[in-house]
C-alpha cells in the first residue's frame, strides 16, 4: 500500500459532515492507525481510530443513559486529555453541544460560563475541577450531572450526581446492548448546520461571549486548511494549549478528524517541553510567547557553553541568518553556502531542533499576537517551517495563512481558502468565509455588532493589505489613538517592538490624548537575571533588579532603538517613546493585569498605576511612587510600595524624507 497523499486521504465532508460521522468513517479507513496518544504512567498510551470509535459510541450511550438529550450543553473542564476530546464527540453523537471551559478559570469565572451556556452535564478532569464545580453547583440550577475522569481523591465523594468516566462507559455498554443502533440513529440525525461547539472568548473587556460554531464552520474550515497544507494521517500533533481555545479545537479536533492524524497529550503541564522532545510533532502550533521563551532559553543556555562551542554556534547561526530562510523557501543559494549550511545542520541546527523537539516539524504555526521578526526568522533559518496565521474564534480560526515560500515576518499572509478579506474605511479588517460563526449565544446585539447581514465579520483589528497582497495588522482598531498633536498612536505596535528585545518581557504604551508617548516596561527576569549574574550584579528580588541603574541603562538602549525604528516608518514616526519606567513587579494574570491568554489589560493597568502615569506625564518628575496589591509567586498576597525611576528616551527627529512625505 502506498502512503496516502493529502488529496486522496481527505474524506468527503458532504457525506461525513459531523464529527461522529467522521469518526465512524476514520475507524474504517484508518483502522489500526493511532488516533490519540497520552503520556500517562511514563509511556505514550495509544488508541487507534477504531478503538476510539468504539469508546465514543459507548460513551455517547452512557451519556444518553444518564439523561443527556439533543440540544443539551456539556461543559468540559480540564487539561488536554484524550477522554475529554472524546467527550466532545460523544456529546455530539448524542446531539448535545460541547462547551469547553478554560481549566484554570476560577470558580466565579466558570460559574458565569456554565450559567450562561445553560449547562446540564459537566465533564471534569480530576478532583480539583470537580471541587470547583461542586462549589458553584448550588447556584447552577441547570447543572445536573458531573462526570470525572481521574478517580484519585474522589473515591469517597458520595454525591449521587457524580459519575466516574468508567461507570459511564459501563452504562453505555449496557445501553448499546439494549438498544443497538440507537447511537447510529442519533448520529444520522445530525447535520452540517447543527451546532458543533460553543467556545467562550475570554474577552479583554466585559463578560465572555459564547461563540456558536456549526459543524460546517469547523469541518469545512479544517478541511480547507488541511488541503492547503497537505496534512496527512501520518502527521503527529501535540495538544497542549487550552481546550477551550478555538485554535486547539481546530488543530486537535477539526483537522485531526479530517486529516486523520494522531493527536498526543502531554503528561502534565510541567513536562510539556520534555514530552514535546520525545514526541517530535510534525504539525505544531504555539503562540509567539512560547517561541520567544524557547529562544530565550536557547540563548541563555548557550551563554554557559564553552567558548569554542559558543563561537561555533554563533558562526553557524550567522550563516543561517544569511541563507537559512532562502534554503527553506527553495530560493537559489550558492553551492558553498549550501555546503556550509549542511555542516551547520549537522553541528548546530539539527541538534538544536532535536533538543527542542522541532526536528520533525513540517508545518509550524504561530498566531494570536505579533511575533518578533528576529524570533520568527530564527526558527525559519534553522529549517523549521514556521508560519504566521491570522484568525479569530469567529472565523473558526483561519482568516489568512502565510503561503509556503511567500513568508514575510511583518505580515500574516494571504487569505485562507474560501476566505474573502476587506478593509473598512476606518482601517478595520473584515472577512467573510464558510467558517464564520453562527451567532453569539443569547446575545443578538453583539452578533449584530460583529457580523453584518451579508456575513462580513468585524475583526476589531486595524490593518491593511500591502503591495504583495499580504495582510498586515497594526493594532486593535479601538486601541489605535492619536496624540494631542494628531500623530497616529498604535500602542500594541510599539509594545511589540519593545517586547522583541529579549530583555523585555512585557511593555505597556500610553499616549492617546496625551502630548507624547510613554511606556511601562517589564524586564524579563530570566534573561536579565542571567545577564546580572554574568556581570556580577547582586539582586534579591525582581523589584531590586528592575530598579538597578545598569538595568535602566540597558533598557534605555532598547527604547532608543525602538524610537530609531519608529522614526523610519512614516505612519508611526510621531509616536516615539519620550519617557519610560521599569515596573517594580511583573504584570500578572492573577492580579488582573493580564488576560488569561497573557494579553495586557491596558485600561486596568492605567487605573491601577495611575500615580505612575501621572508622573510619566509630569515632565519635572524624576520618579513616581506606587502602592499596590500584588500576588507573590506562591500565591500569597502582599502590598507593593515602591518609588520608581523615570527615564527620558532619545527622540529621533523625523527624517527629512518622512517629513517631506507628510
Amino acid at each position, binding site marked *: 500500500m502506498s502512503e496516502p497523499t493529502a488529496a486522496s486521504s481527505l474524506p468527503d465532508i458532504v457525506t461525513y459532515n459531523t464529527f461522529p460521522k467522521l469518526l465512524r468513517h476514520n475507524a474504517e479507513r484508518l483502522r489500526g492507525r493511532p488516533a490519540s496518544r497520552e503520556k500517562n504512567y511514563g*509511556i505514550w498510551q495509544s488508541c487507534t481510530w477504531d478503538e476510539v470509535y468504539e469508546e465514543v459510541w459507548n460513551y455517547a450511550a452512557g451519556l444518553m443513559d444518564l439523561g443527556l438529550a439533543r440540544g443539551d450543553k456539556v461543559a468540559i473542564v480540564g487539561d488536554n486529555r484524550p477522554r475529554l476530546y472524546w467527550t466532545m464527540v460523544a456529546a455530539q453523537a448524542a446531539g448535545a453541544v460541547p462547551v469547553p471551559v478554560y481549566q484554570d478559570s476560577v470558580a466565579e469565572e466558570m460559574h458565569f460560563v456554565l450559567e450562561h451556556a445553560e449547562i446540564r452535564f459537566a465533564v471534569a478532569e480530576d478532583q480539583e475541577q470537580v471541587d470547583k464545580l461542586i462549589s458553584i453547583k448550588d447556584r447552577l440550577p441547570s447543572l445536573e450531572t458531573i462526570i470525572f475522569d481521574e478517580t484519585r481523591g474522589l473515591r469517597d465523594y458520595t454525591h449521587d450526581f457524580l459519575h466516574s468516566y468508567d461507570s459511564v462507559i459501563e452504562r453505555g455498554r449496557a445501553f448499546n446492548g439494549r438498544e443497538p443502533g440507537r447511537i447510529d440513529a442519533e448520529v444520522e440525525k445530525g447535520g452540517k448546520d447543527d451546532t458543533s461547539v460553543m467556545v467562550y472568548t475570554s474577552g479583554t473587556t466585559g463578560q465572555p461571549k459564547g461563540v456558536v460554531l456549526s459543524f460546517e464552520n469547523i469541518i469545512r474550515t479544517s478541511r480547507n486548511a488541511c488541503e492547503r497544507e497537505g496534512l496527512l494521517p501520518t502527521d503527529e500533533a501535540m495538544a497542549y494549549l487550552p481546550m477551550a481555545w478555538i485554535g486547539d479545537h481546530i488543530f486537535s479536533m477539526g483537522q485531526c478528524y479530517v486529516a486523520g492524524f494522531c493527536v498526543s497529550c502531554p503528561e502534565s503541564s510541567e513536562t510539556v517541553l520534555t514530552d514535546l522532545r520525545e*514526541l*517530535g510533532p510534525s504539525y505544531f502550533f504555539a503562540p509567539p510567547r512560547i517561541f520567544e521563551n524557547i529562544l530565550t532559553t*536557547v540563548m541563555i543556555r*548557550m551563554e554557559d557553553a564553552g567558548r569554542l562551542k559558543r563561537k561555533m554556534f554563533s558562526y553557524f547561526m550567522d550563516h543561517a541568518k544569511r541563507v537559512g530562510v532562502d534554503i527553506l523557501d527553495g530560493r537559489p543559494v550558492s553551492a558553498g553556502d549550501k555546503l556550509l549550511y549542511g555542516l551547520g545542520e549537522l553541528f548546530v541546527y539539527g*541538534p538544536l531542533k*532535536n*533538543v527542542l523537539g522541532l526536528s520533525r516539524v513540517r508545518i509550524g504555526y504561530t498566531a494570536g499576537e505579533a511575533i518578533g521578526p528576529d524570533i520568527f526568522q530564527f526558527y525559519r533559518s534553522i529549517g523549521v517551517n514556521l508560519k504566521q496565521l491570522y484568525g479569530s474564534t469567529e472565523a473558526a480560526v483561519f482568516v489568512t495563512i502565510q503561503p509556503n515560500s511567500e513568508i514575510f515576518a511583518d505580515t500574516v499572509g494571504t487569505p485562507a481558502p474560501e476566505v474573502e478579506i476587506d478593509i473598512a474605511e476606518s482601517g478595520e479588517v473584515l472577512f467573510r468565509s464558510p467558517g464564520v460563526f453562527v451567532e453569539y449565544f443569547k446575545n443578538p446585539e453583539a452578533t449584530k455588532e460583529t457580523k453584518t447581514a451579508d456575513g462580513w465579520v468585524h475583526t476589531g483589528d486595524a490593518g491593511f493589505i500591502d503591495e504583495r497582497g499580504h495582510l498586515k495588522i497594526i493594532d486593535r482598531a479601538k486601541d489605535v489613538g492619536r496624540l494631542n498633536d494628531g500623530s497616529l498612536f498604535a500602542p500594541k505596535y510599539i509594545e511589540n517592538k519593545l517586547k522583541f528585545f529579549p530583555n523585555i518581557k512585557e511593555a505597556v504604551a500610553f499616549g492617546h490624548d496625551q502630548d507624547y508617548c510613554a511606556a511601562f516596561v517589564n524586564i524579563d527576569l530570566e534573561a536579565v537575571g542571567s545577564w546580572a549574574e554574568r556581570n556580577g550584579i547582586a539582586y534579591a528580588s525582581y523589584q531590586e533588579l528592575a530598579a538597578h541603574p545598569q538595568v535602566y541603562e540597558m533598557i534605555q538602549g532598547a527604547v532608543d532603538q525602538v524610537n530609531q525604528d519608529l522614526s523610519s516608518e512614516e505612519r508611526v514616526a510621531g509616536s516615539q517613546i519620550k519617557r519610560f519606567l521599569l515596573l517594580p513587579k511583573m504584570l500578572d494574570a492573577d492580579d488582573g493585569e493580564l488576560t488569561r491568554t497573557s494579553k495586557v489589560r491596558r485600561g486596568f493597568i492605567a487605573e491601577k498605576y495611575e500615580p505612575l502615569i501621572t508622573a510619566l506625564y509630569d515632565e519635572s518628575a524624576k520618579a513616581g511612587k506606587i502602592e499596590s496589591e500584588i500576588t507573590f509567586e506562591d500565591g500569597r498576597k502582599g502590598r507593593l510600595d515602591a518609588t520608581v525611576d523615570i527615564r527620558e528616551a532619545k527622540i529621533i527627529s523625523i527624517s527629512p524624507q518622512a517629513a517631506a512625505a507628510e
Partner: protein
Amino acid sequence: MLYRETGQFKTTYLADMAIFPIRQDYFLMIGILLFAYVIAPLVMNDFWLNSIMIPTMIFALAAIGLNILTGYTGQLSLGHGGFMGVGAYACYKLTSYFPDVNIIIHIFLSGFFAAAVGFVFGLPSLRIKGFYLAVATLASQFFLEWAFGRIAWLYNYNDSGAIEVSSRTLFDIPIAGASAEPVTRYFVVLAIVTFLTWIALNLVRGRFGRCWMAVRDMDIAAELIGIKLLPTKLLAFSVSSYYAGVAGALMVFMWLGAAEVESFDINHSFLILFMVIIGGLGSILGSFLGAIFIWNLPVLLRAIPDMIGVNIGAATVEHMTFMVTGALIIFFLIVEPHGFARLWQITKEKLRLWPFPY
C-alpha cells in the same frame, strides 16, 4: 549531536525498559557486534586475535563478574584471580573425568564450582564490610593459590605442577588445544562472552540488580525494606565468581593452553580490579572498556619502541610498562574517578544535549 531522539517515543513499557531504548545506541551496538563477529575475524591476523582480542574478551568477562560484586553490590574483592583459577582447575578436572562431554559444556559448568567457592568466601560479608571484607577476600586468594600449588590432585599429579589442555573439538572442528585455530577459539570466546554479557545486562536491570544496588547504596535501608542482606550478597558473590570461573576456564582452554599457580595470583586479582575501577564501577560497558584499556596498554607500550624503531631491552620495557600503567591509573582516577563508563555517559549526555552545555 549524533543523538537525535526526537520522535523516539515509547508506547509500551517493554520498549521503554529495553536495554537500548535509544535508537542510536541500538545501532551502535549492532555496529560493534558486526565488527566483532564479521570484520575482526576477517581483517585480524593470529597475533591480533591471540594477544589482543581473545584475552581482552576473557578479561572483560572476569571484569563483569567483579563489577557485579564490587560495582553493583559494593563488596570489594581482591580474590577474583583465585576464583578464575577455580574455574580453570574445575574445567581441567571435568575434562579429565568426562573427556567425552563437550568442552563448552565443561566451561559453563566449571563456573558453578567457582560460584560455590565464591559463595563460601562470601559468607564473611554478613558481618564484615568495606576494606575489612577486602582483606577477607585476600584469604581466599592466598588460600586458593596455596591449594592450586599444593594439592596435586588438582593438576592430576603432573610433574610440572601445571595444567595442560589437550585437543577438543566441536562438530569435528578443533576448538581447544594446540591444533585449534585462533580464529575458532576467538569465535568460541566471543559467543560465550556475548551470551554472558547479555545475561549480566538482564540481571542488573531487574529485581536482582536492584537488590544489589540497594545493598550497595545503603544496606540498612535495603534491609528495612525487606531485602535480606546475606542471600543478596551471597548471590552477588556466587554470580560474580561464576563469571570469574568461566573466564578462568576460557583463559586456560581458549587462550593460554596451559596454566599454573602464577596464572591466578594476586596480581591478576588486581588487574581485574583495575579494569573494573578504570572502566567504571556499576557498569557492564565499563567492564569492557576497562578490560580493553588495562589489557592492551602494556601491549601497546611494548609495541611502541618497535614502532618508533628504538631498541630497548625487554626488561626495560617491562619496567616501563609497570610505571606507565601505574601512572596512567592514577591519572585516570584523577581525571574521572568513576571511570570510562562515566566518561562515556558524560559524553553521551553532552551529545544528547548538544549544542547546549546542560
